[in-house]
């Protein structure tokens, strides 16, 4: 790994160099009811739009690689015959400016299923290969438990990763493209002082985590606790609204819809992201529903994230970003659910939670 250091104001110069491409980054969208800023990833058109001090975004950057709706194929139909066209879009490079470690890790995890296993999804791969990612070290907020999931730092999957050292940035460079860009701004090799400072900042970040999830032996525990009453307790609260999957950076389940245009000469096959918490997720024609209860669906989501994916890829599908918990109207958070399933009370945000039973 090659490291560089550059003055803070040079970042604007780097932005200008990159801005001939489309740039996506964190921007402020408003404030919540506690007057805390709400951020989201969006196209940015000027460096000043970037809210680089963001703690987390409501939505993940997922939609830039997995749009909520996407045409998988287009058909031209005439009489009895038809032709199918796939891979409809050409991709342009997109610069992602200021993605946190959890979200980069989330993309790496999505790669495992969508790009590296059987039947790779070509449209996803094309989007991925056209991403230029500038990572940014974060300050953990109370909802984050990425440290427990091993995703608080990221080893690959970015071009350049920045850490804020007060008046300068410490840059880890992992692609030649990034290296070439840095050649065009004023930057230097790090000295011993910079390295010390970098280590101190990292250590300080680590100490800030307040939320933890005990993941030891979790795959086995989930199997053992398959019939645990904890699932019913949380299932009774769940509204089956699917918001959790909507905001999650690693939820990729989908449904497919086909439609015919009004002119009856074209048809579309459209993929739309779905959520395993929605009532008809596992319902088949004829009416049988393999997971009719909110509790079984909620359980399934945890199973897929924390057990099935681990079994398949030796790592969890959850990056501990806490978005699902923050967005859930019923207040269902992974740290609490997992602690409950393990039969432990959970200390969340510093307060002791009690079960009603």
């Amino acid at each position: 790994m090659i490291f560089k250091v550059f003055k803070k104001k040079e970042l604007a110069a780097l932005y200008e160099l990159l801005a001939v491409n489309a740039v996506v980054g964190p921007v402020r969208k408003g404030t919540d009811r506690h007057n805390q800023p709400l951020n989201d990833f969006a196209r940015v058109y000027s460096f000043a739009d970037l809210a680089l001090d963001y703690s987390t975004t409501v939505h993940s950057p997922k939609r830039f690689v997995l749009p909520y709706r996407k045409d998988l194929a287009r058909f031209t139909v005439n009489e009895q015959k038809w032709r199918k066209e796939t891979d409809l879009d050409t991709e342009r490079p997109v610069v992602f400016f200021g993605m946190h470690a959890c979200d980069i890790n989330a993309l790496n995890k999505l790669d495992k299923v969508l790009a590296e296993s059987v039947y790779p999804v070509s449209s996803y791969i094309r989007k991925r290969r056209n991403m230029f990612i500038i990572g940014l070290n974060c300050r953990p907020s109370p909802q984050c438990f990425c440290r427990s999931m091993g995703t608080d730092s990221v080893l690959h999957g970015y071009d350049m990763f920045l850490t804020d050292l007060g008046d300068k940035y410490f840059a880890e460079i992992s692609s030649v493209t990034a290296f070439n860009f840095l050649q065009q701004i004023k930057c230097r090799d790090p000295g011993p002082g910079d390295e010390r400072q970098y280590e101190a900042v990292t250590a300080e970040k680590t100490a800030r985590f307040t939320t933890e999830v005990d993941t030891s032996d979790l795959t086995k525990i989930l199997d053992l606790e398959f019939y645990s009453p904890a699932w019913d307790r949380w299932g009774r609260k769940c509204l089956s609204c699917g918001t959790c999957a909507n905001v999650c950076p690693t939820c990729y389940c989908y449904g497919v819809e086909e439609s015919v245009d009004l002119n009856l000469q074209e048809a579309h096959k459209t993929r739309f992201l779905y959520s395993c918490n929605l009532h008809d997720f596992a319902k088949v024609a004829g009416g049988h529903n393999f997971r009719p209860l909110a509790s079984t669906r909620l359980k399934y989501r945890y199973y897929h994230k924390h057990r099935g994916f681990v079994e398949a890829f030796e790592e969890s599908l959850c990056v501990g970003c806490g978005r699902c918990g923050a967005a859930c109207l019923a207040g269902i958070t992974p740290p609490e659910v997992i602690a409950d399933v393990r039969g432990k009370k959970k200390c969340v945000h510093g307060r002791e939670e009690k079960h009603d039973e």
Partner: protein
Amino acid sequence: MTNRVTPYDTPGRHGRCRAGDPASFESSFQAEITNIYSLTAREKLYQIQLVDQEERNRFMFRPGQFVMLEIPGIGEAPFSISSSPLRHGNLELCIRAVGNLTNFLDRVRRGCSVGISGPFGTHFPVENMHGQDILLIAGGLGIVPLRSPLWEVLDNRNRYGTVDIIYGAKRPVELLFTYQYEEWRQFDINLQITVDQGDKDWHGSVGLITEILKERLNRDGDALAAKTCAIVCGPPVMFHFVCDMLIKAGIPMQKIFVSLERRMHCGRGKCCRCNIGSTYTCLDGPVFDYWSAMNLKEAI
């Protein structure tokens, strides 16, 4: 020097996401429905032929695998291949009209052009069952996926021991493939058919599959346990009772095979709709040996 970040300029820079440009995820074969036979009020048999002759000959599948059948603008769904693997891209699918696509199919005529992708999924390992007695147990629509391994067994009849089929439907009018029973019987097999509820023209046995199975298992218990492979397919409630009986009769779990059904939207391990616990039915299934199925939470 231009500052545009060019795609593909640094292969492999995204960690392990470095696959080359793969064939389209959505690729499928053009096929044509060449014949349609009404089997019952709800089920029809569709003979489907891949249009391109070379593709048709190259199309290979194993018994128990399924294809995704698509009609543009209407829908796409998984269907078990019900024909002999020897027939390559001349497929037979038996389809019950239950929803959007299947009701549309119910109304199409010969010559209709469809998309076929696959074959997908695991298969019944009949190639490993040489020298064994074969016990096929089907309930209702379950006979459809069983017809393919049956054909493979019949095509190589002398490689197998006894062949028993136990097939049950609710009513006589719901029995599928009635026109073929005599043909099957000519291969020295024991075909037993039962209905839950007879009618005035029905002279066969009336009762549940499990009753016929009990008789069969009692007849030569030990010999059966020693060298029998069982293949079971039917509605979810059936698996439990039937597999229980087979295991009690001493047939090892790894020699009992089931084919499971779940909602599917891709057949390629991507949409997650087919997951059982967290196993993909489309990739790791639909055929599981009973040991694996038992290890899946909520499978059976």
